[in-house]
């Protein structure tokens, strides 16, 4: 199950999974463009990138910083089945 987290100004949608075995949470970054989507996925808590398509290195660097600042909320919402405020949209 994927839960919406936030949407950045460039329409990059950030979503996360439930907590998987070994306490892993995957965070998905999806940005639409004319031919489909740019996609990146990162597994926490190791911050391992398991998929990268279309995003520039500088964007991945930003996502890394983003994840370090947001991991506490992502884990909380992964545990509770997504943020209530995001689910109500």
């Amino acid at each position, binding site marked *: 199950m994927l839960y919406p987290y*936030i949407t950045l*100004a460039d329409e990059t949608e950030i979503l996360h999974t439930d907590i998987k075995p070994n306490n892993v949470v995957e965070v998905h970054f999806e940005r639409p463009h004319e031919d489909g989507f740019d996609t990146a996925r990162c597994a926490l808590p190791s911050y391992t990138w398991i998929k990268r398509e279309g995003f520039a290195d500088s964007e991945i660097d*930003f996502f890394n910083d983003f994840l*370090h*600042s947001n991991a506490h909320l992502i884990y909380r919402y992964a545990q509770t089945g997504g943020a*209530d*405020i*995001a689910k*109500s949209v």
Partner: protein
Amino acid sequence: MPSLFKYGGYLIYFWSNENDEPIHVHVGKGKPSANATKIWLTNAGGCVVAHNKSEIPVQDLRDIMEMIAAQHFWICVSGKNTLQWIGSSFTANTTSTVYPVLFSFYRKVLSIRTFEHPAYVPPAPSFLHPLKRGNEGEQHAANPSANAHKDSHRFHWDPAGFQPVPDGFLLVS
């Protein structure tokens, strides 16, 4: 008006021509407005409600503030880059009675106690002094590498060690 992100149907954005104020964002649903709920960013990595003219429900407001605090680092960078924001994030004027009263009001009425970023470490007794972001200096000495330093303070948040800052001085950076 540079938008930052959307969260739960709310748009979080800057409003141009307000760069004579501390760094802040507006929050609202629908058409953006200069009168939408305003949230100041504090130097310590947290945020404070300046006003809630969008009348965002309390629970939503708390979630939004937590989310904004988590984005503190790039909101400040974005503000300075896109709006040429000269000032830094908010630093309390300890001679003013306005900010302590505002904070006290929101804390009591909305039960919002702590807006601090997880990386925020409660200030030492010298909280009236200019910002020292937690034990940054000590950690920096232990980890001279900039990246190692950044990582080292991010997840060493001990909720048990948190002590609410006295009324009126949460905003001190």
